[in-house]
């Protein structure tokens, strides 16, 4: 990727992020206005949307630092189960606000992978946030977010899944070309700029991973395939 490509990519990601951040800021502003009108202050909600907005900003900054090689990636043996568990815990509050159930699907033992734990968890949280936000619009009575991993012939597939049957690889690739230029680059997925997905994509790309459409337990979602390193089991 040339410097101008990197700059354009960074600018598009920033535009998508700016669009996305309008939502949590409006939530906070309106809750305060409602409190002034005599309604009960929902501190839990204000806290969870503010935390998620800060997470998105931090994840964006991390992805930029990694892609511009300002931060050296300290790869380490990482347990995918632990990464998904950590992401689920961080998403718990915002999921409750959107009445979305979080499920962890970990089938069996996975060999450790070489990765950057902080970036992997940040990417999973960003992905999960976009899925939670998008599911409220799908008309599903009981929205659910599955953070899951399964083995495939290419490695361990780890990602976030929900009721998004219409999500295809073609659609995702088109959305990657459109994000930052179109307001809704994934229109059938959700109404927002889905910045969390593109931030996650950027984080995985910095770790030489590739976000792709995946299926898990009859659900569709986005995942990354990580190659296990059997030697790490002996470490």
């Amino acid at each position: 990727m040339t410097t101008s490509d990197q700059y354009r990519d960074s600018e598009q990601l920033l535009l998508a992020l700016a669009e996305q951040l309008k939502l949590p800021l409006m939530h906070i502003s309106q809750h305060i206005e409602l409190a002034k009108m005599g309604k009960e202050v929902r501190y839990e909600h204000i806290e969870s949307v503010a935390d998620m907005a800060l997470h998105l900003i931090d994840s964006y900054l991390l992805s930029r630092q990694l892609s511009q090689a300002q931060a050296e990636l300290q790869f380490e043996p990482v347990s995918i189960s632990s990464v998904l568990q950590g992401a689920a815990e961080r998403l718990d509050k915002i999921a409750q606000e959107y009445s979305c159930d979080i499920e962890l699907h970990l089938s069996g033992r996975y060999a450790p992978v070489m990765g950057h734990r902080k970036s992997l968890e940040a990417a999973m949280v960003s992905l999960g946030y976009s899925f939670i936000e998008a599911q409220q619009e799908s008309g599903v009575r009981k929205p659910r977010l599955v953070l899951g991993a399964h083995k495939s012939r290419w490695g361990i597939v780890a990602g976030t899944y929900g009721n998004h049957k219409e999500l295809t690889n073609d659609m995702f690739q088109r959305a990657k070309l459109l994000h930052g230029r179109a307001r809704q680059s994934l229109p059938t997925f959700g109404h927002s700029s889905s910045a969390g997905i593109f931030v996650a994509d950027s984080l995985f790309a910095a770790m030489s991973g590739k976000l792709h459409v995946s299926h898990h337990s009859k659900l569709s979602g986005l995942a990354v395939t990580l190659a296990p390193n059997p030697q790490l089991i002996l470490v």
Partner: protein
Amino acid sequence: MKILLIEPDKILAGNYKDALEQSGHNVSWRPSAQSAIHQADSERADIVILELQLPSHNGIEFLYEFRSYPEWQDIPVIVLSLVPEESVTGGAKLFEQLGVARFLYKPQTKLRQLVSVVNYLEPAVV
């Protein structure tokens, strides 16, 4: 007044509903254009509040469909959107053609401003 609120974000919809109901209005919330058409079909609204950025169909498509039915042509529509008016192809002229009574840019519209605009608008005479 009976208000049909078309807003994809559940939390924002709840806030608008709270503010409008406190002012004595009756609000039906729908998150998508398709579900809003069904709602409008089952219960006539006095005013429609519409976000343009919706999942699947966008708000402009909804407006074209909504205005194509004679019984809904005179219902005032307030566009309350994350998209600024000048960013929409056709802009103010298009919204005038589609019978949009007011265009409000959501991030800069306080709840009390929305309530004032709704209170000011007269419902359509059936």
